[in-house]
């Protein structure tokens, strides 16, 4: 099977959807002339003239305009440059994008995708490295996805564009360059937003993550396997509305749960998973829930400090061994 990068996979998804739906367009900063600051839109401007739009540095317009364009009948994809900048247009996400359908009694459809490159990229520091997905799982009315590999990157983005609800698509900056096998178009299996995937079956502990956190999950599972510990690994993929049943079923089987993400641990997306398991499957837990995430600090610049901000597979392995 062919191997393509995460970045190429998202580009393919865009091209295929723009081909399929003339009302799909994309706007954001530095897309048309540069192909996106991470090259993820390369080639699209030439392929779809007039439908890849460079905006001024106006985040409230990028998102609010996206919502308005959706209300006006288009199917917009808007790009946030760096996920950190969603802070600029929080009202457009929280009060407009997420609310117009419900508060207008279902009259509106918002087929909008907000793409947001996130994560530690090495030296991005406090305002260019954050993983901010957790803010948005607190908001009903929007869907939040965060794929962990090229194939999912493509299928999840296609599903997001075809979705009639607003979707926040978090794409990790480090994952962009990672290549993996992606089937040809005719062999693709569509992704259904809201579904998690049991990536690896196991019986002793369930490790759950998403996006780049899956690298930790997989590495920890590999290391544990060498020591005879069988870990089940689940890729959540959609953070909101998330796949409770897959998670609960796994915990009912393994009786132990380890959660990991790159975002700040406090109030993070994994806290919701932990709380739900405690609420709905407490009697199946044979150990405390383990949760790994970033410390409660802004992201430091110096490599020596940034190093401390990260979670490592060894952390998971040590923690899991401690509860077996």
């Amino acid at each position, binding site marked *: 099977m062919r191997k393509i990068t995460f970045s190429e996979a998202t580009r393919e998804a865009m091209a295929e959807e723009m081909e399929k739906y003339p009302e799909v367009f994309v706007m954001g900063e530095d897309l048309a002339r540069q192909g996106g600051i991470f090259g993820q839109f390369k080639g699209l401007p030439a392929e779809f003239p007039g439908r890849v739009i460079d905006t001024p540095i106006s985040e409230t317009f990028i998102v609010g305009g996206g919502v308005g364009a959706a209300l006006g009948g288009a199917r917009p994809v808007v790009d946030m440059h760096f996920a950190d900048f969603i802070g600029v247009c929080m009202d457009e996400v929280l009060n407009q994008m997420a609310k117009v359908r419900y508060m207008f009694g279902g009259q509106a459809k918002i087929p909008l995708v907000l793409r947001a490159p996130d994560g530690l990229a090495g030296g991005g520091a406090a305002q260019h490295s954050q993983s901010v997905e957790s803010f948005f799982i607190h908001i009903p009315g929007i869907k939040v996805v965060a794929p962990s590999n090229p194939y999912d990157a493509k299928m999840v983005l296609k599903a997001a564009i075809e979705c009639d609800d607003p979707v926040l698509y978090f794409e990790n900056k480090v994952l962009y360059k990672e290549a993996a096998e992606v089937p040809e178009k005719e062999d693709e299996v569509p992704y259904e937003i809201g579904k998690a995937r049991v990536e690896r079956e196991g*019986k*002793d502990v369930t490790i759950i993550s998403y996006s780049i956190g899956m690298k930790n999950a997989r590495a920890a599972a590999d290391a544990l396997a060498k*020591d*005879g510990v069988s870990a089940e690994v689940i890729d959540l993929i959609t953070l909101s509305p998330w796949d409770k049943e897959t998670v609960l079923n796994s915990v009912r089987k393994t009786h132990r749960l380890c959660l990991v993400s790159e975002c700040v641990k406090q109030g993070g997306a994994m806290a919701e998973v932990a709380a739900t398991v405690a609420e709905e499957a407490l009697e199946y837990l*044979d*150990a*405390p829930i383990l949760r790994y995430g970033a410390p409660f600090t802004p992201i430091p610049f110096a490599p020596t400090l940034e190093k401390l901000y990260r979670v490592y597979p060894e952390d998971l392995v040590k923690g899991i061994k401690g509860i*077996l």
Partner: protein
Amino acid sequence: MATEIFMPKLGLTMTEGTIDSWKKNVGDTVQKGEIILSVETDKLTNDVEADTDGVLLKILVPEGETVPCKTVIGWIGAAGEAVPDAGAPAPAAAPETPAAAASAPAPAAAAPAARAEGEYVLATPYAKKLAKEKGFDLARIPATGYKGVVVARDVEGFVPSAASTAAEAVKASPLAAKVAADLGIDLKEVKAAHGRILAEDLLRYISETREKAEAGADAAEREEVKPMSGMRKAIAKNMLNSHMTSPTVTFNLGIDMTEMKRYREQLKAKEIKVSYTDLLVKFVAKALTEFPLLNCSVEDNKIIYKHYVNMGVAVALDNGLVVPNITDADKKSLTEISAEVKELAKLAREGKLPPEKLSGGTFTITNLGMYGIESFSPIINQPEVAILGVNTMEDKVVVRNGEICIRPIMNLSLTADHRVVDGSVAAQFLQRVKSLMENPALILA
């Protein structure tokens, strides 16, 4: 460094012990070798000595509580020293844990189920769920989990000790278990009419307890509930076990004690003072060497013949009875036997019988003659197969050589296990005892 005080294992068969009394209070200074508590087992009460100097830091098991052997029951250490968590020490008592062996690479050291009464048992939710389903008392399950927490594998691998099996592993139908859980009824309180507890047993229990409650305060004043002592529990268990194990027949035979009385007087004249019990031990031991079927035990479908006679002698105590035995009674002289019987009785009354004297008997003599009893059917001391009850000696009118005369007659009541001892064998054995006792000189033959 604080040191644990364990529930000692006093003898091979001891599985659990009851704290009879703590001789020291928390905070008291103790010296190595000093008695710090006494422990009651199913057979006796033993003193336990401190094996280190220090201060009694903590009592984990209160008086009257029964715990498995090797359970940590307290701590001795330096004054003010913190007592480690339950998870710290790792005695060998923890059961094998299959789950741990299968999947956990490095399970935490097993913590003993050493918990004070009412102490919250640290257990995972899943372990609690499993324990509830299996009807186990969490407090008895040793922990091997993180931080000394009882985890699922501890419950799965838990084998309730023999003594507590009956009380703990309550068998109940799922419906009964659910209803009991819903109503908060302890299944251990409910009697099953047919093996396991069914819903109908539960209903009966509910109506009975309601009647009891309605009977009012009067009943409470007229009755009193006290937990059985360790010894009482042991007697109850042993007697019931014997009753259920052996189909017994009791044989009575009167013995003319004229010659025996004379023999005893002769010895006394030579400053050899022996009791009738001593004499019986000697003469019955002699007979037993000739009737191996009465000196055996039964295990499954096998008969184990003992080529020695360890003669048990029942000793009544204020709160029960014990049966120490005289090892190799058949090879001992009458004076040796006499001295040993006296010593054992003394130790028994002081609660200081060494454990090895309480096991390994092959036959038992129990004497109720001093109470004027004329006949009774003693219960076999398992795993023995026969027991000889001794009755009162009375002058009776008998016919000897066609003449009416008065003779001292003593009835012997032999209970034998019909699985191995047929009636004729028992009868012949009794007859042999009679002939030996009526002709004491034969003891030398």
